[in-house]
């Protein structure tokens, strides 16, 4: 078990190096001069320009820049943004916000998927099944920015049930609308997975055995059908969580959530190589860790799985 975790973490090392290299290269290759961009309309004098270039290692060849950056990264220095803030501090401020939003969204997505999927599976082909399918497909096919703007306009602005933007107050009561939007955009696949597994599990031999023991349906369904059906759904939802940790950029933008997606987007626009790479590194690590946790969770849910 411990060996398995260590091995998986070691596997993450080449992943982190590979992704940071690619990202660093892409930021490097982006058109435009980041130092000039910092000054906007004004042009800095040559001495200032050179000093800044030296500070950010921009006067060095690409590989040297990358090497220096990685050296800093592994010694715990994530560098500074162009506006002078420490990247580490920015991360420490934005990451918990994204984590919270993602956790809220996934909790909601998972509950929706399990409850709706279970009943859709038990009522296969009936009205409830068809209605949830149609709603699910609509949510899946509508682009998230449409869903986001609609929710913002109707729920927040027109009806006043939520604040239209999140801003600095990142409490649950202030962030529920973007969480709902994210959950709605994601729950369909988990729900359909749940429905399919429930239908499949219900016809399994061990369910018949459970009935043959004399168990009533109100025990067989939760203990033998629901419990077994959760395995793939948990995996799917956890994978969704990983996606959210990295990519709620659009939703964070619409609702002005001060999370990593939003900050990363702006850093990319400004061509801030170190900031972008630091963020991506942390995201990659978060994704890897979440996936390890998912795999471990899998072993908890399914006793047949053994890690060695």
């Amino acid at each position, binding site marked *: 078990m411990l060996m398995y975790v260590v091995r998986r973490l070691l596997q993450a090392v080449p992943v982190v190096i590979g992704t940071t290299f690619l990202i660093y290269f892409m930021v490097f290759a982006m058109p435009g001069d980041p130092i000039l961009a910092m000054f906007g309309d004004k042009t800095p004098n040559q001495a200032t320009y050179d000093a800044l270039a030296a500070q950010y290692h921009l006067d060095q060849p690409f590989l040297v820049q990358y090497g220096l950056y990685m050296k800093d990264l592994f010694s715990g220095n994530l560098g500074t943004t162009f506006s002078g803030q420490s990247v580490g501090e920015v991360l420490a401020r934005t990451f918990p916000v994204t984590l919270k939003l993602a956790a809220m969204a996934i909790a909601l997505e998972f509950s929706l998927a399990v409850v709706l999927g279970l009943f859709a599976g038990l009522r296969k082909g009936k009205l409830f099944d068809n209605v949830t399918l149609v709603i699910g497909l609509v949510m899946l096919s509508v682009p998230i920015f449409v869903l986001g703007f609609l929710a913002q306009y109707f729920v927040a602005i027109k009806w006043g049930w939520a604040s239209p933007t999140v801003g600095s107050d990142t409490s649950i009561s202030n962030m529920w609308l973007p969480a709902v939007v994210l959950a709605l955009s994601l729950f369909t696949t988990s729900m359909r997975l749940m429905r399919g597994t429930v239908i499949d599990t219900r016809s399994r031999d*061990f369910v*018949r055995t459970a009935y*043959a*023991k*004399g*168990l009533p349906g109100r025990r067989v369904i939760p*203990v033998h059908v629901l419990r*077994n059906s959760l395995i793939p759904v948990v995996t799917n939802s956890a994978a969704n969580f990983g996606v959210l940790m990295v990519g709620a950029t659009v939703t964070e933008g619409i609702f002005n959530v001060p999370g990593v997606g939003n900050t990363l987007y702006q850093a990319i626009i400004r061509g801030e190589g170190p900031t972008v790479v630091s963020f991506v590194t942390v995201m990659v690590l978060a994704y890897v860790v979440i996936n390890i946790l998912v795999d471990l969770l899998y072993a908890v*849910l399914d006793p*047949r799985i053994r890690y060695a």
Partner: protein
Amino acid sequence: MTQETTPVTDTAEPLVSIKDLEIGFQTGNGFVQAVKGVSFDIFPGETVAIVGESGSGKSTTATGIIDLLPSNGRITGGQVVFGGKDLTKASKQEIVRIRGREIGYVPQDPMSNLNPVWSVGFQVREAVLANNMAKNKKDADKRAIEVLQEAGLADAERRMKQFPHQFSGGMRQRVLIGIGLAADPKLLIADEPTSALDVTVQRVILDHLESLTREKNTALLLITHDLGLAAERASKVIVMYQGKIVEAGPSLDLLQNPQHPYTKRLIAAAPSLASQRLKSSKVSAVEAPQGDEIDLAAASAHRHEVVEQADHAGTPAIEVKDLTKVFSIRRGSFRSEPFTAVDKVNFQVPRGTTMALVGESGSGKSTVAKMVLGLETATEGEILIGGKDATALNREEMLAHRRRMQPVFQDPYGSLDPMRSIGSIIQEPLDVHKIGDRKERENRVNEVIDEVALPRTVLSRYPNELSGGQRQRIAIARALALKPDVVILDEAVSALDVLVQAQILQLLADLQEELGLTYLFITHDLAVVRVVADDVAVMERGKIVEHGKVEEIFSNAQTEYTQKLLDAIPGANIPLGA
């Protein structure tokens, strides 16, 4: 062993009385009637067996009694009277109360009938608690351990927390028997309780079931496709065919003096009841009474001479010398230890003959088959196919080698790709080995489909549209497409019904005669060995413990292990009337 269950006198009230029971299924092709008016009684403490091929409605009848039909099944008529009440009209609550408590159920496949995510203890305890056999969890645990010990799991206490996948098939079946008997029901329905198990395990399980039900005076309804087993275990046998009872009566009478032609066919097809080597039906047609009925017993006389004439002097088709396979198996997280699955095995199979490799699961017989096929590398030893060493081949040689040797596997449902048509399945080996042009390949496919006696129309169909027996014919056709010299049959008939099994065995005998094939027949079923093989090698824990002509082994087994396997053939000792 044969007739120990004592039928209660006719004056007693029947425990269950089934009257004109009709059950049907809603399918894609409309409503199909599976059980068409079945009536029989089971008296307290009595063992009744229902025998029939798959699709005869025997399992449907059994599950219909306690409303465990699949969701598309429905009782359309008749009565199941139990304790003065008609179960077909009982409410859901009443049925739930009767299940487990009054009528226990032991299902067919121990592999799929326990929930993989709950511990064995949890699942037995559930049965105890559901039927109010214990007041609290602690009592329930005690009772669960008791139940498992009764079912033959001596170390039940230690194993309560283990999960089903940590149990062998036989152990799981004991757990299921324990669950079925947890609440001391008055009737136990056992639906093919041992057909997924090794013969020796089967015997132990059935003995146990018999003594348990006798002790507690539980009535037993035994569903089986094996007439020998039914006759050995039950006092009354009911033969079902196409949803109807065609014959019923005291088991020995029925076996020795069958009235209905279907019962006669079943008896003739049961390898456990037949006695001699099967030969090509073309040879036996002269003496065989009816043309299309397959009689394993009758069709096996002169094979002996054929084998004698076989080219014993020439190079054997398969020769294995000191074949050894060592696996390293994991013990804990870090350690692994060597495990010798096959230990210095030697044998020869002369051209045109059949050698059976017999043993319980885990004896290493399938590993030998895999090594001979080149699907597994040998740790040590030599495999000579037609005199050529098959252990040290490069890719090209391996391809040529495989052309001469083809496998047929056990599960006709799992071994055919469901996404491909039958024609393309049979043609694939020809494509892989680049045999002839398109036209020639098509001709060859038509040829082999004729050889396995299927209509050419099946070529455009898909595996799921065929029955198990038809699929196994397809698997054989695929194996034959390349005109191999050697066919390795790995439990090729074990998953089939007796009647279908008899047909396939007959087909194999015919093909051997016609094409001069050499068979290596891997099986756990000695009853089948007797009708198909010339030589037999008995394997135990990786070693061949006994080797010789089939007649010699059967009449004069040298080792205890072989004798144990022979004794385990159900119904072997029942004297048959002609």
